[in-house]
């Protein structure tokens, strides 16, 4: 079925644009970039049609990559139902966002570079998704990290963008470290990295082993999917262009951790401690990030924390054993969060770069398309039935209730807060009086059409796509009461936002004033960056400086090196006589060396 075509098509786009894009017109760059992704999407559809109904996994072996002792790792790609869901999301949403980028990036420098990186990202993401063993997956995993770095730092002439790129990369390294350790551990215990082999052996393995692997994998997932405590890079990653935020930092790459955890479900199923840790980290992240989101003024930051929070939901789902619910939420989240980001991008575009909510307002009339499409997404994320977010969030909360009721309640509170901060952003941006100075204008159709497509998916994606059924693990029986509670929480959040930001704007001020301490804490994101700075980065830097640099490096290594160097200089001043610059002398030394070598070989070889 030529699965390799799916990732290789965007790779070809990357190579063409990357190598020759500088000479291309924008039209040609567009054609290559979007054409490659669209073809890839088409090939995904063809693959699905050809393979349906896909009960098990279909895999293709291309070549043996590493053969060392018992380890035999091939370059294999595989498709099963989970992969299909991911493929559709990645290529589908990816294609839509590519189209959107035409409009958004129209006036930016480095046009071809942007699309080349975007295509490269698609390649690695598809490799990640299609991989049939952990190592190939890791290739994609690292590759998307690289592309994320490149695209966050896309405006590389701005310091904050490159800093954000570095931060993302370094924080991800911590997670990747966990992933690598997990792989080594797997090789040690299972002698293989193939999904099939590992998962077949998992039930018989000792629980401690599985727990260690599960926790290490979770560390990797936390890094990639911005979970506590490694979430700090994602809000900063908003320094990149908005389509990047939508594609990489909302819809696809950050969900790789969820995908990987869901993929490794067989391991977690037999390591309840690890699964519980995943669930706890998920719910904690969801709640924690949602509280930060309440007080942010940068529109993209709000959505970034929202993403962290929603990813927490997905982990909650996966950790509770309802991995299909997690994936379900992943899919719907890809729709509405991408839409929110693209809408935010449209707003930013309309305001020529303004991102602060306090300088917006009243845009409902000026940019109606953007408003209405974003509203679809806002409603969806708030969990209002029958929009997409409702179904998936409900599935997760249901699973959480079965798993541990306190998680359900915390999740419901978080849902309320989610509704509140999203609508707070919506109301601040689209209602009231316009508080900015630019002249807002509606975005071009090439940006609005993707918005509309995603809006349709946000509206209907929930009940049209039954991901859990497709994955063959339909959740438990519906619980009307729980459903009503979580819906009510969402509606209350919306209502509260309406009250505070539309009906009585003064209320928000007084509320913030009355709870100044808490507000400051939340507004400053719990000072996590500062705490990390004080607790990890500064000691590390200071310690490195004091001990490693001044002590070990200067004293020991430099001392040794200088000492060696000084001796070498002494010896060299004698040997320098050999370096006469005379070629014939050199030739004589070569001759000398070869004579010595022949003698040595003769002696070693036992020829006397």
């Amino acid at each position, binding site marked *: 079925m030529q699965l390799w075509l799916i990732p290789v098509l965007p790779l070809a786009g990357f190579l063409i644009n990357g190598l020759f894009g500088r000479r291309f017109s924008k039209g040609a760059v567009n054609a290559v970039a979007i054409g490659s992704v669209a073809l890839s999407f088409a090939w995904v559809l063809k693959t699905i049609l050809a393979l349906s109904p896909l009960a098990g996994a279909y895999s293709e072996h291309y070549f043996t990559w590493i053969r060392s002792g018992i380890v035999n790792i091939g370059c294999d790609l595989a498709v099963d139902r989970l992969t299909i869901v991911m493929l559709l999301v990645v290529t589908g949403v990816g294609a839509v966002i590519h189209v959107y980028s035409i409009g958004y990036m129209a006036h930016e420098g480095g046009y071809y570079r942007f699309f080349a990186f975007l295509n490269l990202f698609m390649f690695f993401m598809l490799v990640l998704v299609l991989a049939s063993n952990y190592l190939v997956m890791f290739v994609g995993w690292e590759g998307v990290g690289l592309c994320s770095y490149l695209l966050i730092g896309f405006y590389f002439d701005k310091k904050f963008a490159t800093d954000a790129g570095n931060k993302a990369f370094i924080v991800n390294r911590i997670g990747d470290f966990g992933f690598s350790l997990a792989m080594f551990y797997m090789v040690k215990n299972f002698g293989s990295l193939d999904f099939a082999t590992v998962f077949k052996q998992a039930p018989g393995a000792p629980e401690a082993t599985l727990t260690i692997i599960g926790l290490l994998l979770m560390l990797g997932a936390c890094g990639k999917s911005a979970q506590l405590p490694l979430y700090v890079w994602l809000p900063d990653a908003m320094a990149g262009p908005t389509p990047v935020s939508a594609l990489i930092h909302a819809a696809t790459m950050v969900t790789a951790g969820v995908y990987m955890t869901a993929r490794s479900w067989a391991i977690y199923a037999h390591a309840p401690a690890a699964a519980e840790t995943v669930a706890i980290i998920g719910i904690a992240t969801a709640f924690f990030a949602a509280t930060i989101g309440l007080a942010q003024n940068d529109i993209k930051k709000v959505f970034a924390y929202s993403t962290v929070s929603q990813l927490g939901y997905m982990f909650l789902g996966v950790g509770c054993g309802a991995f299909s619910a997690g994936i379900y939420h992943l899919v719907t989240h890809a729709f509405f969060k991408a839409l929110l980001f693209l809408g935010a991008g449209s707003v930013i575009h309309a305001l020529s770069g303004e991102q602060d909510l306090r300088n917006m307002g009243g845009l409902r009339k000026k940019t109606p398309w953007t408003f209405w499409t974003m509203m679809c997404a806002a409603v969806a994320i708030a969990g209002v039935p029958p929009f997409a977010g409702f179904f998936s969030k409900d599935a997760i909360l249901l699973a959480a209730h079965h798993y541990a009721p306190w998680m359900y309640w915390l999740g419901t509170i978080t849902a309320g807060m989610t509704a509140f901060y999203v609508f707070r952003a919506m109301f601040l941006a689209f209602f009231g009086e316009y508080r900015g100075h630019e002249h807002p204008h509606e975005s071009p159709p090439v940006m609005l059409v993707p918005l509309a497509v995603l809006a349709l998916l946000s509206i209907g994606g929930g009940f049209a796509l039954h991901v859990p059924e497709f994955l063959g693990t339909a959740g438990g029986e519906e619980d009307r009461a729980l459903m009503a509670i979580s819906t009510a929480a969402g509606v209350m959040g919306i209502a509260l936002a309406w009250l505070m930001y539309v009906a009585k704007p003064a209320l928000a001020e007084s509320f913030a004033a009355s709870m100044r301490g808490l507000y400051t804490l939340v507004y400053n994101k719990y000072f996590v960056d500062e705490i990390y700075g004080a607790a990890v980065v500064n000691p590390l830097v200071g310690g490195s400086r004091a001990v490693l640099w001044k002590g070990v490096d200067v004293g020991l290594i430099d001392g040794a090196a200088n000492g060696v160097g000084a001796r070498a200089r002494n010896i060299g001043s004698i040997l320098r006589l050999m370096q006469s*610059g005379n*070629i014939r002398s050199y030739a004589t030394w070569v*001759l000398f060396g070869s004579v010595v070598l022949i003698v040595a070989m003769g002696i070693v070889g036992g020829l006397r």
Partner: protein
Amino acid sequence: MTEVPISWFLTLSAVLFVLGVAGFVFRRSVVTVFMSIELMLNAVNLSFVTFSYQLQQVNGHLFAFFVMVVAAAEAAVGLAIILTVFKNRATLNIDDVDSMKN
């Protein structure tokens, strides 16, 4: 005795090789030095072909062939370098080309 011992060929090869080294070490003309290198390559080729005979395999011939190709490439570039050196320094004496010394 109508057959030649194989060691004779190898000894001839060794003699030629040593003569090439001698040319490299003792001659001052860059061109002659370069030719000495060719002489060494030829000597090595002879032993390749001899080994090929001994092992009754064609591989040695291919090595010799590749040596020739590389020698051709080397001659083209080397002579171009000699031309450039001569143009810049107006000398072919290898002992005069020693600016790496300082």
